[in-house]
């Protein structure tokens, strides 16, 4: 009922539109997917992520990730960490040895269990420099969306090769994930609000602390 009525109203309203092909009717003056001019992509990425009061750690190689994760968790007093099934064991082995409880999301942790978990450790799908953003497409090494939402500390590992210049280049990389109907989450710093007198406060409902480890 509703749909027929609405479509009849829309079509009557658009009587002035003669060209049936939307692209031929209105041209969009924009070249999609272009990189921007950034000299040091990884350097700018790190700088812009830190602008949001997140922490960036650099790992010279994949071998160094495990120690950095253990160090980050220890510094924030995190006694437990949730890990999606696809995260390499080497990333959390050192933390486990240091006594941190590893909570694999298999079978899925309940909301209550997640709420009692101090941290979460994931990979990322893509990151970009201009806005200091990381995107998760929630494949096996990033886990389902709730994992990176409920614990208060998010440790995210991204390879230098995954970092591009800006939104257009990143969207081009994410197209395949969207085609696969993967959910996608963009993260720019810890959760924040400016709702009281427009003064920015980091840390509301999402993780209040974000640590990004850049590999390579």
């Amino acid at each position: 009922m509703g749909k027929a009525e609405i479509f009849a109203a829309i079509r009557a309203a658009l009587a002035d539109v003669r060209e049936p092909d939307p692209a031929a009717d209105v041209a969009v003056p924009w070249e999609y997917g272009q990189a921007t001019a950034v000299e040091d992509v990884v350097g700018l990425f790190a700088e812009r992520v830190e602008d949001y009061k997140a922490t960036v750690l650099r790992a010279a190689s994949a071998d160094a990730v495990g120690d950095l994760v253990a160090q980050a968790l220890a510094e924030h007093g995190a006694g437990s960490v949730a890990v999606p099934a696809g995260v390499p064991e080497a990333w959390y082995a050192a933390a486990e040895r240091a006594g941190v409880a590893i909570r694999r999301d298999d079978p899925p942790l309940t909301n209550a269990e997640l709420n009692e978990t101090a941290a979460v450790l994931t990979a990322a799908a893509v990151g970009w420099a201009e806005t200091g953003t990381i995107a998760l497409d929630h494949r096996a090494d990033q886990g389902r969306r709730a994992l990176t939402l409920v614990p208060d500390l998010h440790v995210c590992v991204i390879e230098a090769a995954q970092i591009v210049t800006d939104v257009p280049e990143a969207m081009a990389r994410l197209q395949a994930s969207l085609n696969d109907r993967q959910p996608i989450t963009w993260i720019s710093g810890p959760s924040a609000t400016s709702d009281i007198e427009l003064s920015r406060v980091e840390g509301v409902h999402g993780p209040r602390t974000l640590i990004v480890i850049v590999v390579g």
Partner: protein
Amino acid sequence: MTATDLGMPGSSRRTPAPPAGRLIDSPPFPVAAKQYLADSQLRANLHHATSTIRAKRARVTAELPNWEQLRLAGEAVKDRVARHLDYYLEELEQNLTANGAHVHWAADAAEANQIVVDLVRAKGVDEVVKVKSMVTQEIELNEALEAAGIAAWETDLAELIVQLGHDRPSHILVPAIHRNRAEVREIFLREMKLYGRAAPDSLDDEPRHLAAAARQHLRDKFLRAKVGISGANFMVAETGTLVVVESEGNGRMCLTLPETLISVTGIEKVIPTAADLEVFLQLLPRSSTGERMNPYTSMWSGVRPGDGPQEVHVVLVDNGRSRVLADPIGRKALRCIRCSACMNICPVYERVGGHAYGSVYPGPIGAILTPQLRGTAAAIDRSLPFASTLCGACAEVCPVRIPIPDLLVHLRHRVVDERKRSHLGLEQALMKGGGWVMASGPRFGLLERAGGLVQRVTGREAVGPLPWPASLWTRARDLPLPPEQTFRQWWRANRDPLCHPERSEGSLRDDEATTVTSVTSASAEAAAE
């Protein structure tokens, strides 16, 4: 714990009651503006907030060398969608359905509310958590749910302040922009304990601590919620994907943790492709919060097994939008991506605040959108196109280049035309009289000389307050008197070649001479009449 449990007198509500009365019955803008202008606390809060956000926006938009190209692209994509809305909605519905989402269509607010109430009832729950959404404000969904015995909890910090404050939003991005930190503290201490976890007694007015109180208050509600309700900033037709842009993570909580998700969106929110997001997700955050990027953006395409809500509904709402679409000029308002840059820069909004606009959409965009969505039957809606000085700052900052002043003038025209059809008002009578005078040179000359005479007699250059009906004009402005000497008199005395033949040769440049000739022939015609 509900209000009933506490035995509050005369109340069986689940959630805090908003102010009595309907927005559409608000007084006309000039009347409300006068009232809000008198509130110096409100003006101080608004000045502080809007000047902060204006500066941030200016800084981050200047950072992008291709900002204007982005605006042009945003405008073009939105125009393409508006002109082919049926095409993209059809594609969106097909892809959403293929992704396992249920699509519902609502012609108006009542239909939309009924659909949502029925869906929530079918899940057998009596509470839902909500992501901030303008369209659910527009259709007054919370009150429809409340009437059905369902508590709708707002989870955005500012929306929570508004809800707990028994208040209405006054801004589309920062609904509690009219409240300062001390007022927020007071509201939290007084109200939180009535509806869930109390604010700590030691709560001070530090924004960090106020945000922490909101986190604690809402966490239980997030974790137990079975149904979440959201809007959407964009809907991608090509992939059947909805997008929500937010900061606090309350959006992610509502979109991810409940078993059922109901997203209510206006039909104009559809965009053709996922690639188009690269335009809008640059335009929106920089224009709205003045950040390079907002903390969180969520994209979901129907149901994802094992991740997030396993029952997903999308309610597509017309509620006046197809009527807006029917006006090729007015439809430009449908480009709006609800960033709020226009109200943050508006000198009128900054002084009166959002409540004076009698609509969930205040400021310049509200002044052109509300009278189109709701029509112009109500006094407030007829007054909104006039709630502007036409300074044009709003059009300069609009990320999708809506020519807001042009639309204001267009709608003023519509309102005046409608009034003319019903009766000839005082203003129209004056305009008609003015038209009669100005249509004839001698008649106009006579009026000018009369005006000059008044000034010579009174010795003033302007008149102050005049009695009604002239007071409608003079109470806010001085009425300048015509000068002692009119332009025609000056011309005749100084330049008219008929009176000063010696000046017509040599002393004038060629272009001036041409003007002189045409003016002379015009005055000759006038004299002959």
